[in-house]
């Protein structure tokens, strides 16, 4: 097992499992088996790196006062030239390949930890080759997929949806969040897996959990996993959102600024689609499972926002002076002369006053991480 125990691990706490598989020795390279090579799949370039970035975020940035990080299980199978996050590498005892046996052990350990309190939080991220044929499935191939020692072909794979469903029971962490970042296979490859059984899954139990969204990302091409040493489109979007890009203000579910599961759903859906489309790819994010609002990340203070206001028409001279009033309350801040206006301040609603005759006003909503607006003068 590769469990990074957190000193003073809290109860209730957050228990996490992060898996990233780039290296598939039995599919590709000198150790490839006949069965493995037959699938025509090659190792990925950045799934392990992506997973290590998520693990590092959990170790260094994750904040949840109600359930601080208590344990983190990390299994990484990097490709030959792929580096993993140095802080995560330093925290691990050595290589921790994501084999079936290792994933099974960590999954059992995760479930045991999550069962210690219903107030625990469960966090799971899995990246690698995916072989799902539908929008509701996610079977991810593990490091030892196609190992000739396995009794069935799908033994070296994890059925993410099956494990997700198996973690739904009454006496377990009632707040869970799952991410499957998988590369979808060509139809002729995917069809060959359809009736295969034996992927790692969990028995279904009685009861439900309060919230357990599963975000399923499936790229159409391996290039969605980026260049060697890079990170996947999905993991980039996820970390961007969790670092504040998806932050929302306090509400009835969380008294602090936070990233909610609902917000994460729309952000991942839109951002992944846009980034993939810009690269000429297609990548969709589907969400499954009970989706009661849960704060996935909390912030100790309202995030600051970079506010930029452009003047239209461009080059209008002389540009007027401007004042920014938080909640329209005087006296406000006189902005430095010159356009575009730049200001860094707390997230929120501002009244921008252009000091011209007649006075012009504009309400700005400054959402993290940045806000760009335009105002027109005659």
């Amino acid at each position, binding site marked *: 097992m590769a469990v990074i125990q957190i000193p003073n691990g809290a109860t209730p706490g957050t228990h996490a499992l992060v898996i990233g598989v780039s290296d598939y020795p039995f599919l590709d390279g000198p150790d490839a088996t006949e069965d493995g090579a037959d699938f025509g799949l090659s190792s990925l370039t950045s799934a392990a790196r992506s997973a290590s970035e998520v693990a590092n975020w959990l170790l260094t940035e994750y904040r949840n006062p109600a359930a601080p990080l208590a344990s983190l299980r990390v299994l990484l199978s990097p490709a030959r030239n792929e580096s993993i996050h140095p802080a995560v590498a330093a925290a691990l005892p050595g290589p921790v390949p994501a084999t079936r046996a290792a994933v099974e052990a960590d999954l059992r350990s995760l479930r045991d930890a999550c069962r210690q309190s219903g107030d625990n939080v469960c966090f799971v991220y899995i990246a690698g080759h995916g072989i799902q*044929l*539908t*929008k*509701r*499935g996610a079977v991810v191939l593990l490091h030892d997929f196609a190992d000739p020692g396995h009794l069935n072909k799908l033994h070296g794979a994890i059925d993410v*949806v*099956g494990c997700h469903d198996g973690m739904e029971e009454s006496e377990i962490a009632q707040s869970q969040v799952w991410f499957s970042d998988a590369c979808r296979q060509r*139809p*002729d490859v*995917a*069809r060959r897996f*359809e*009736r295969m059984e034996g992927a790692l899954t969990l028995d279904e139990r009685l009861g*439900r959990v309060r919230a357990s*969204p599963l975000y399923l990302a*499936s790229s159409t091409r391996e290039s969605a996993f980026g260049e060697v040493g890079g990170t996947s489109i999905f993991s980039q979007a996820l970390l961007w959102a969790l670092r504040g890009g998806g932050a*929302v*203000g*306090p*509400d*009835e579910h969380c008294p602090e600024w936070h990233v909610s*599961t*609902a917000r994460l*759903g*729309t952000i*991942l*859906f*839109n951002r992944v689609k846009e980034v993939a*489309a810009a690269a*000429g790819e*297609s990548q*969709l*994010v*589907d*969400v*499954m*499972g*009970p*989706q009661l*609002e849960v704060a996935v990340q909390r912030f100790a203070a*309202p995030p600051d926002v970079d506010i930029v206001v452009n003047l239209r028409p461009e080059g209008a001279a002389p540009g007027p002076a401007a004042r920014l009033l*938080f*909640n*329209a*309350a005087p006296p406000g801040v006189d902005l430095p002369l010159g356009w575009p206006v730049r200001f860094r301040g*707390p*997230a*929120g*609603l*501002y*009244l921008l006053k252009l000091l011209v005759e007649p006075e012009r006003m504009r*309400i*700005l*909503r400054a*959402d993290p991480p940045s806000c760009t607006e335009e105002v027109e003068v005659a």
Partner: protein
Amino acid sequence: MSAPTPEPVAGELHVAIDVRSDFLSNNLPYVVRDAALAVVHRGMCGSSVTLPEGLYSVSVLSADGERAMELVQVKGNETTAVSFPDPYPSAVEVEGKGVTAPGDDPLPAAGPASLLSMNGCATSLVDAEGWEFVPAEPLEEVPWAGFLLDGRTVEMSLPLNPRAAYPLNSCRVDVDTSGSGPVLRMAFAPGRLVTRLVDGLVRHGSETLGKDVLEKATGLLLEKYADPSGAALGGLTLHRMGMLSGQRDWVENLVRGFPWLTDGPVLLAALLRGAEPDERRRGFELLLGAAQHRPMYTDGLSLAMDLLRRWPKPFDKDARDAALDRLAGLSAYADWGSVSLCVDASERGSS
């Protein structure tokens, strides 16, 4: 002694949405955030709230399933009205032009695509962007059409509504050339407003934000037998969110009332999967029956396959495998970005 802090002056905020549906104009949720962007009120469009004067952000789940936002300044002792525009201002209900029935020759073309065949449907309108389809009576299976698109044969299920008169029974299929290659995209008729909301929530990834209105809308679509195709889409979405378990009667009605709609038995099988053995056997039979037919929605196909893969033992493994094989032949070549099932039949045929 410092002077007492003056009482904050309050004003009223009224939120409305311009949409030609009583249900939607009173059931679309809005959220008010104050200047610090903290939520201070949640309500339904058509209602008012009293707030301390200041700046507020009002966001609403619009009738197209997207979030719309307005920024307002509430002033003391005044009413500030926010009205969100109709997202479909140009959605004029048009008259059908010369219905083209299956077998008519030649079938019309639109842009880089041409229509090859129609099953259980007919065209009511053709223009440069695409086709509008209406159902053929009586429906015995999910209606679908075959297209030649960029040299490929593509088959798309059409979520038509045999319960309504034209144009509320129709849907459009347009050729979208904005991506790397042309694809077909289905749109419900402009007047199918509640169904369009359900569809919009799915398309924009807003299901979680709109889960309450989704539940009400789906119930409305079925209870009044208004739009079974829309109700099936809502049911699938609710199931995906773990919110369908208490709706057994509702799903039974969908299956009983609209036997041609393949996605209904799939939904019912999903509810029966965890039931007593007799009920579970019925669920499995429903699933095997449904697997013989084309689903309406991509998500209906996904659910059917997921259920077949995970059905609790004991079951007839040969029958299960045969059903799974048949559906895998659709799923492997399905366009996952399409809400209604759209399959590349030429690729499927060549594999």
